């Protein structure tokens, strides 16, 4: 019997449960009914009890079950986490007796929480479009055509009429040309050509095209790689539409898309830096708008790519054209497209010929200087192009040398070189990639790398409590994301996945020491940690603090602490499985 007088007395129990998953997802009425099906039980330190029937929620204290520890707000039992539990300290529990639990276990929220893998529990479905799954055909716009014998004036008028910035030109043999507003400016006006100039004289031909079934993300990558902003979309040789970079970015956002364009168009270093300094705030705004950190980091990475590309162009303009082809290779979080609000500079340079080194030395130093001023701190480990410029042969030799290093600790500082992404340059670096990926077939190197990945333990201390340094904070980078990045790298090398992205790596098919379910869990954990880092840095940004990845434990809510402990337990389990396979620690 529920009376107004008795609701007051049970309120505390509802309030407690509301702070923790899965109860946090229940509506008030359901939660009130659930509390009425609970019993309160005390178990003194050392007491053993069976948690096979019913549900058990720790109200206060700590218990151990099957070698794992559960504390305040954590739920065991439910036919999933069952066995003999033992109270590690004096512990208060809520118990839902089996006859009541049967009904609640059919509640989708509770059932999902208990039975689903960690990955899906940590990941509520996102609301935004995912560029990696949407085909370009769904987001392109109709293309407008120009005739090759049209004058540029007619073409400009047509662009104005349709409020577009490019026209396609259909040529013989299924080839297309393209003319853009930028061409009109750079190739006509700036060159002093008359309005009567024909389109065929100034258009770009042939235009690069992409089939319409490609995912939007591939289109975006393609456009960045080839430095183009208007991409004709074809189906079986027929032109079906056109896609602009800004269209793609605006699809998800109201911000980064514009800033990417602004960065690419920046007239000089000062303008470039001014735009670059807005990036953290732009990204933060998107997070406020409800995007997950995973998507934001990916979007923001296009802005960082644009920043790099434009910086390289501006420095080439300052120093004169490069004497030969090169590849500017990003490393670290921007390479993975998983940066927070304050990514470092991590990169190296591959050049075609040793004789070009003096030019590229000056080039790299100047690029780094501009980027520092744009807000990208120098890499603390000094992994930057000015100190790491390889010829392609030198790069291949270096990769082979690292793969023969007998000491895992010596590898610690070079693992970053195994997460590369070329951001600019024309040099063909496939030989380097092959040398890098061959590491996956080198058993002793892989064993070293595995030992390294398991030697760094998650910060769980006594009774699997979060263990912190003297400042009572955790570093979400070194004591969180890095664990999973290391494991993803192992898997990627083993199966020959060349992407630097932790997401792509963990989803790459193929056999490695990591079971697919484990990889799915790690992916969910990684996504959660990215969100946690984003929340931390948002708070730092709005309170004017320096951006860092150190999370004061006092800032963690109860449920966040539960999730974090669960993630660390997962990493601990994975490490415990891997360690014996490489001869222990």
């Amino acid at each position: 019997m529920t009376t107004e007088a008795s609701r007051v007395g049970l309120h505390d129990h509802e309030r407690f449960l509301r702070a923790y998953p899965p109860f946090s997802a229940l509506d008030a009425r359901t939660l009130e009914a659930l509390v009425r099906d609970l019993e309160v039980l005390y178990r003194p330190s050392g007491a053993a009890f069976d948690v096979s029937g019913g549900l058990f929620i720790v109200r206060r204290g700590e218990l151990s079950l099957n070698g794992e520890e559960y504390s305040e707000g954590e739920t065991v039992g439910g036919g999933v986490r069952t066995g003999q539990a033992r109270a590690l300290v004096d512990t208060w529990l809520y118990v839902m007796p089996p006859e009541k639990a049967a009904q609640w276990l059919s509640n989708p929220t509770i059932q999902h929480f208990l039975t689903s893998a960690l990955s899906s529990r940590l990941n509520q479905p996102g609301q935004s479009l995912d560029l990696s799954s949407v085909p370009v055909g769904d987001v392109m716009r109709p293309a407008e055509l120009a005739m090759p014998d049209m004058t540029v004036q007619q073409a400009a008028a047509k662009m104005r009429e349709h409020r577009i910035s490019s026209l396609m030109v259909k040529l013989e043999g299924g080839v297309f040309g393209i003319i853009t507003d930028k061409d009109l400016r750079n190739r006509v006006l700036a060159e002093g050509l008359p309005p009567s100039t024909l389109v065929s004289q100034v258009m770009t031909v042939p235009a690069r095209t992409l089939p319409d079934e490609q995912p939007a993300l591939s289109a975006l990558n393609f456009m960045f790689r080839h430095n183009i902003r208007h991409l004709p979309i074809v189906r079986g040789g027929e032109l079906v539409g056109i896609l602009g970079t800004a269209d793609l970015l605006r699809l998800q956002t109201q911000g980064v898309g514009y800033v990417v364009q602004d960065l690419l168009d920046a007239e000089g270093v000062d303008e470039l830096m001014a735009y670059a300094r807005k990036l953290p705030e732009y990204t933060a705004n998107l997070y406020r708008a409800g995007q997950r950190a995973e998507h934001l980091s990916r979007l923001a990475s296009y802005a960082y790519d644009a920043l790099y590309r434009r910086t390289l162009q501006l420095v080439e303009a300052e120093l004169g054209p490069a004497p030969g082809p090169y590849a500017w290779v990003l490393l670290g979080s921007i390479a993975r497209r998983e940066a927070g609000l304050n990514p470092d500079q991590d990169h190296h340079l591959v050049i075609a010929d040793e004789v070009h080194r003096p030019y590229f030395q000056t080039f790299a130093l100047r690029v780094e200087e501009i980027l520092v001023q744009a807000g990208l701190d120098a890499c603390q480990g000094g992994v930057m192009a000015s100190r790491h410029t390889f010829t392609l042969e030198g790069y291949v030799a270096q990769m082979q040398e690292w793969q023969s290093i007998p000491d895992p600790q010596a590898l610690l500082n070079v693992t970053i070189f195994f997460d590369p992404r070329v951001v600019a340059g024309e040099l063909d670096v496939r030989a380097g990639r092959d040398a890098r990926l061959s590491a996956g077939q080198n058993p002793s190197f892989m064993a070293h790398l595995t030992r390294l990945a398991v030697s760094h333990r998650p910060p769980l201390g006594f009774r699997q409590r979060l263990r912190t340094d003297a400042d009572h904070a955790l570093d979400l980078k070194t004591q969180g994301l890095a664990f999973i990045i290391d494991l993803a790298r192992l898997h990627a090398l083993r199966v020959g996945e060349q992407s630097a992205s932790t997401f792509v790596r963990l989803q790459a098919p193929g056999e490695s020491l990591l079971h697919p379910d484990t990889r799915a869990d790690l992916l969910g954990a990684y996504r959660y940690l990215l969100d946690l880092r984003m929340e931390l840095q948002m708070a730092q940004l709005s309170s004017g603090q320096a951006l860092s990845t150190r999370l004061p434990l006092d800032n963690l809510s109860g449920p966040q602490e539960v999730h974090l402990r669960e993630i660390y337990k997962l990493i601990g389990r994975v490490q415990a499985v891997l360690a014996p396979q490489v001869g222990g620690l």
Partner: protein
Amino acid sequence: MTWRSAEFVALDFESTGMNPARDEVIQVGLVPLRGERAVLGGAWASWVRPTRPFQGASVAIHGLSAERLQDAPDVLEVRGSLAAHLNGRVMIAHYAELERGFLKRWGMKPPPTVDTLMLALALDGHLKGGQTTQTARRDAYTLTALARRFGVSVYGEHDALADALITAQVFLVIATELERKGRASTVKEFTRLSGYGGGWLGLFG
């Protein structure tokens, strides 16, 4: 009968004062215990309509207005429900003299009683031959102090149901501890330690 298989009910009265002969109960709260488990679904509470106006001071303590209480069920009605909840169960209260006094005032026969105050004193060795020793500090044995000591959340003070729930939890810790120390494990032993186990009650322990 061992306490783990007994049926209890933890009871708390909020009243206008400490004198059952003169003061009035304004709220009743209780929660049943099935052995070592407090059953939240059985929790019950009720306001009680006063039979005469009471002084301002208690209004302040309970945060209740006389008007609100005027709409509450009267003693007769509450007494009927309460009797059903107490029937066949051992009562747990903190300083049970008060609850027992009010029950008698309402013409109800107090059930066999376990007093968490007396059990706490016994647990700490402050009870000798039914008398409290001089060494016990009074403020260490309030319900709130014991709750804090045993890791029981304290909330909604001066709410009869919240206090009944806290009393139930305090009892669970003390009973576990007394049993672990070999001091008491049956209902009879608990009621005797509480000072209500003498006489004829002992025959039914």
